[in-house]
């Protein structure tokens, strides 16, 4: 899609469930440096499997993962390098926190990178600050609320200063203000971000680019993919309200292509106002 070379890519990926059924079949996926990609798809479609392959946690049955053009070999040394650059945060914080207190948990990655205690410590403080959880540093992990634990897992990944951050359903279970705060935090990160979510409205608002996992493949494109009714149905998604409303109002969906797709409430309001004032619907 872009002429810039992909930072992280999956080529002809085949991944199977332990039982033997294929989750992904010859799936391709690429992310360009600095882009924000929303990954959508039904429950069980293979979003998490794709993220796990991209992070190196899961070795695909076939196909290849490449970082900056270099294919990932799944030996110890290559994986070590890969994990320092690509970090995955899974959905359930209980399965990712394993230290007694917050600061100790966030310091886990930096210490494993071989940083000396002072350098590791400054990384920890930096990412606690970025996630707005400095006040929790001394607290035992098991006493935190769900939303707080989610922030700690993200802080743990951020403290490794990855070039790509992969997030699986980071907003699930957060209240609306928590979602807004998290999205603001992500905007502050310099990493490339791939975010898996079920929230099509959020995906449309936040992402530069979309990837939809359906039929064991990944379809990538711009936000106008969310206007494609048959694709949405196949992927068990729904049309975001932004597009749904404009369709109801009789706008020509063909005109809402590429950068003309309205994302925010303000965008939609602008499209409606323009059309009310008699201008064409773009």
């Amino acid at each position: 899609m872009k002429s810039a070379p992909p930072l992280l890519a999956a080529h002809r990926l085949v991944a199977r469930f332990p039982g033997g059924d294929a989750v992904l079949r010859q799936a391709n996926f690429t992310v360009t440096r600095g882009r924000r990609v929303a990954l959508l798809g039904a429950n069980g479609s293979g979003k998490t499997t794709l993220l796990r392959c991209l992070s190196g946690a899961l070795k695909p049955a076939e196909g290849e993962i490449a970082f900056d053009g270099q294919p990932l070999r799944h030996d110890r040394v290559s994986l070590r390098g890969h994990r320092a650059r690509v970090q995955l945060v899974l959905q359930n914080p209980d399965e990712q926190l394993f230290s007694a207190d917050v600061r100790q948990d966030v310091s886990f990655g930096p210490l494993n990178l071989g940083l000396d205690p002072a350098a590791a410590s400054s990384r920890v403080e930096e990412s606690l600050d970025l996630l707005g959880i400095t006040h929790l540093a001394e607290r035992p992990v098991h006493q935190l609320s769900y939303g707080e634990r989610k922030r700690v897992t993200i802080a743990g990944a951020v403290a490794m200063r990855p070039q790509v951050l992969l997030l699986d359903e980071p907003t699930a279970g957060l209240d609306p203000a928590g979602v807004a705060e998290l999205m603001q935090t992500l905007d502050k990160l310099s990493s490339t971000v791939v975010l898996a979510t079920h929230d099509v409205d959020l995906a449309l608002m936040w992402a530069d680019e979309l990837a939809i996992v359906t039929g064991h493949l990944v379809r990538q494109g711009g936000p106008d993919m969310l206007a494609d009714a048959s694709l949405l149905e196949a992927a068990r998604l729904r049309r975001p309200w932004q597009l749904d409303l404009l369709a109801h109002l009789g706008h020509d969906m063909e005109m809402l292509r590429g950068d003309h797709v309205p994302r925010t409430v303000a965008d939609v309001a602008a499209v409606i106002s323009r059309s009310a004032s008699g201008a064409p619907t773009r």
Partner: protein
Amino acid sequence: MNAQNIAIDAAAWDSPWRRRRVGEKVLLSGSLVMTALLSDPWPGCVLVAAVALVLMLGPARIRPLLVLGVMGAPAVFLLIGTLPVAATWHGMGDLAWGNLGWATDGFALGPLRITPGGVARAAALWAHSLAGTLAVILLATTTPMVDLMGWLRILRIPDPLIEIASLTYRLLFLLLGTTLAIREAQRARLGDVASWRRRWSIVANALGSALITTWDRATRLQAGLEGRGYEDALLTLSPTRARSWAFLLTGGACLAGIWSSSLAWTLWGAR
């Protein structure tokens, strides 16, 4: 191993024999296990192994690769366990450590000697053990643990014990899933390249976190079940399954076949 898929367990749930009466399957496997234990290696144990394999790969439709994979653990034990049986111990004083090579009564390995008699004993053990294990796996791959737990009520094992065992089964998958996920999360943050010393505390942290999570889950499950009316017994409907005379008769015929061939072989050998 994977949380959703302990291979034998997954096979048992998918098995076409799941709808058979547990008692019938226990009777068949149990008789085969006892036959493997009591009969001679040839032809008894070999026939038991053959019957178990044919039933598994045939009517029970278990994948051959699964059977092969599952046999890994017992095979390793057999390798280690039969080595001392194959060798005789001649004492430190009897033979010097440098003694290596063919002796009059077998192959000498320092104070150990591998004799033809020892090898024959080891081979017999292999036969008993492999046949018996296949007979156990026949039951295990066709009957989920919970069905067996329910069946144990017939043996008048008190309900609380069966309930605890059944809950153990349910929590086992939760705990296994959590533990494996935590290990993966630790690897993702380079836990496996930490110093050897640090790796030990990392394993301990994973286990500790998993234990706390499970503890917490057990307490929450208690609260959740109270909401569903749990007071002191975990009542559920147990499925009714029809008796199959065909199954019983076929099983009986197999066993009769094995025992009569064994008997015939013994008589023929004695003549």
